[in-house]
């Protein structure tokens, strides 16, 4: 058993499962967005604003952002632990990663519900 404190869920199994599930959510959101752009070739602000005024679209988007946050945390934590060996620099990079994810997530919530 290898002890870890900066990965997303403290457990490798749980991290792995979250990455699988979040990947599916992100794939669905990407497919939806690509489909939407294909069906609306002449997209304007009114239509875009209309799409995001639906509660379901906001929930779907927030779900995708949370999935992206978890996915990025698990994935980049893995990359950092692979390639950065000095503990201080590695821990510093992990803190920057986690703070950045937090900031982007709160920002995304503000954009979704602020308009």
């Amino acid at each position: 058993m290898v002890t870890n404190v900066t990965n997303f869920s403290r457990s490798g199994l749980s991290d792995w499962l979250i990455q699988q599930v979040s990947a599916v959510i992100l794939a669905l959101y990407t497919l939806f967005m690509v489909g939407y752009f294909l069906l609306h070739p002449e997209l304007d602000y009114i239509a875009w604003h209309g799409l995001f005024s639906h509660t379901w679209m906001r929930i779907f988007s927030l779900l995708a952002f949370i999935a992206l946050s978890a996915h990025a945390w698990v994935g980049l934590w893995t990359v950092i632990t692979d390639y950065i060996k000095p503990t201080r620099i590695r821990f510093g990079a992990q803190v920057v990663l986690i703070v950045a994810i937090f900031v982007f997530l709160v920002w995304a919530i503000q954009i979704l519900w602020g308009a």
Partner: protein
Amino acid sequence: MLQVSIYRYNPETDSAPYMQEFQVDTQGRDVMVLNVLELIKQQDSSMAYRRSCREGVCGSDGMNINGTNGLACITPLSAVVKNDKLTLRPLPGLPVVRDLVVDMGIFYKQYERIQPYLQNDTTPPAIERLQSPEERDKLDGLYECILCACCSTSCPSFWWNPDKFVGPAGLLQAYRFLADSRDTAARERLAELEDPFSVFRCRGIMNCVAVCPKGLNPTRAIGKIRELLMENAT
């Protein structure tokens, strides 16, 4: 004439490793890479490599042959040599003791960690613990591993974290005991493996499957371990 380029390093006399060129006459025959090494040993007796059974059973002569890990004794020149050029290097990612000999300490340490022996806390029967033929079949493709380290030393996850990631060889054996109907320590074994490194550092790139000289599939065994962890935890 076969052009052979070999990684040489003697820590007592060399300040850094270097590649040495040899010319070997195989008389046009398709011999094994180990035969070439023996011919080179006649030219330069200071060449160091491990070997023992010379038939792919002992796992001593794992090395990097033209960029791919394999056992020198069962790799024919025709399978690896193009344009009469052969390059031999030690297994990647492990400390070099001398020439093609590597220090396998950390590899064995990971093997030891998965407790590669049968554990059973029930009273032993008078003669032996029996298995049905179906139960025995589950061990096929797992028990044949000879611990040559070709797989683990071709795995980037093992290169970056050999102290934390068990590696394909160790995990294949971990599953060999998890799959054994006579073993009763599955829960304890799985508890040791659920952290983010031991099993989950595997990204499924299947280098291990590509190089295994015995044709085994560690990636599938790792998938089965993940399934067992899931069954236990959901």
